């Protein structure tokens, strides 16, 4: 059952990603990217990581996709003609993919069977965030606050003298 689900989700995710890379209209590409995001979320669900999957939908579909769509809308009026195929991009993409594959294959933990993990509840995540990972959490909070203030300053109207 999970193998079938895996194959189906993989096809959907890859098709979305491929469409996002090749569709001539930018809005269509952005919307197919949403399909990819949903596919990744479905993978998390399949792995039993409910919380991460939900946050994936929440952040990527709810916020990042809307952001992308808005930027496209506010910057480009008309869809430009399709550029001709860019070989340099393909080379870089293949290099990155090869690097990732190499790194994953080198990882030793893949060959070890997963230990029995207790069911990961939201409560447990909260506890861990507040004890073991409190400093990373604070750093992320600081970073986000800085970004927020920066965004506010960027759009603030300058007072005319």
């Amino acid at each position, binding site marked *: 059952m999970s193998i079938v689900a895996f194959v189906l989700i993989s096809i959907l995710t890859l098709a979305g990603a491929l469409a996002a890379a090749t569709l001539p209209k930018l809005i269509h590409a952005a919307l197919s990217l949403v399909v990819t995001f949903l596919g990744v979320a479905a993978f998390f669900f399949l792995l039993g990581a409910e919380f991460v999957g939900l946050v994936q939908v929440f952040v990527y579909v709810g916020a990042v996709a809307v952001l992308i769509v808005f930027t496209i809308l506010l910057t480009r009026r008309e869809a430009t003609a399709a550029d001709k195929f860019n070989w340099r991009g393909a080379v870089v993409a293949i290099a990155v993919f090869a690097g990732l594959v190499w790194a994953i294959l080198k990882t030793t933990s893949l060959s070890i069977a997963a230990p029995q993990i207790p069911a990961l509840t*939201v409560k447990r995540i909260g506890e861990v965030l507040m004890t073991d990972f409190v400093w990373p959490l604070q750093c992320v909070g600081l970073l986000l606050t800085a970004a927020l203030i920066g965004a506010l300053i960027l759009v603030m109207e300058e007072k005319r003298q």
Partner: protein
Amino acid sequence: MSNSLDQIFISAKQWLLSFLAGAPDPIIQIASSLLNIAAVLGVFLTLFALISVLERKILGRMQNRYGPNRVGPFGLFQPVADGIKMLIKEDIVPKRADKIVHFIAPIMIAATAILALGVIPYGRNMTPFAIDGGILFFFAVGSTTELAVFMAGWGSNNKFSMLGAMRAIAQMISYELPLIIVTLPVVMVVGSLSPDAIVAAQSKFWFVLTPWGAAAFILFFVSGLVESNRTPFDVPEGESEIVAGHMTEYSGFKYATFFMAEYFGMFAISGLGVTLFLGGWQAPFAWLQFIPSYVWFFVKLSILLFVYIWVRGTLPRTRIDQIMGFAWKFMLPMAFTCVVAAAVWHYEGRGLAGWLWSLAVIAIVYVGLSRLLDTGKRFAPRTYRFAE
């Protein structure tokens, strides 16, 4: 007796599933899910038909006119007539529209609204899909509505549609923040993101009876009004300004789908409000527990829905800049105050002292905030120079 009445739908489902006894596990799982889906769709489509006619009757009553009364007794078959009319109407797609996006938008908007209904506990053991992060699921699904609205507006290739979609997205994103933050105190106090646990935690008292709960409930209700694009926050549709916003280019059954999704969204957000603050399916007093739990849930839901209709019949439409200013300057700080007040309530021992302290926190911030936001404008009857 009362217990079997309470669990009558669960027993019915078990009875239906017993026909499949001996079938492999996945098939039973799928059948069980399909039964849940059928139940949710059946109940809420009926409620949608009922509420659409009731809304028009109540609005008519408030505006001193009859409302629908031609079809069937008291006009009760009006939704059937409407449905048939919508079904046989011509489906018009603009020539310059983006056909695929235009087609997918209503499907997506309806799908998200229905998905959100799936995690709400409608009664004892009556959550269609009980998942651990139910509240998070609700908001994750709800946040994809914005994308569907955008698709509708952009796919129509119409300035009115695009304007409506932009307004809708702007206000939905702004109010999503207070909406999510006011659920935080409940999640903090209960210590769980599961709607069932939240309802179970309210068996002694409802959260709306604490100061932070009451404040959070009001904020939640206002945000819910905005999220479901209802008057006084219906600027995305604004029929007197931009025709019907993102629904301008839709006709026939696609328009009906949008209409349905809007009502489903309203049911979902009211259902979540009932779950979070009004005790879900719990009876208000122990001696009233002989009435089945789902009856309590739907009674509370109908009261909230009546208030929605009441507000629609009473208040005029607000301006978009007023809506946005209200969200960022008032709702958001008050939502954070609710979180702090809930923490104070918890650390003061959840008793009378905590009750008073959290009330004090909310009152101080409320008064301070109103002083800060006071523009000094005093409102007086308008004087007309030439129009008398």
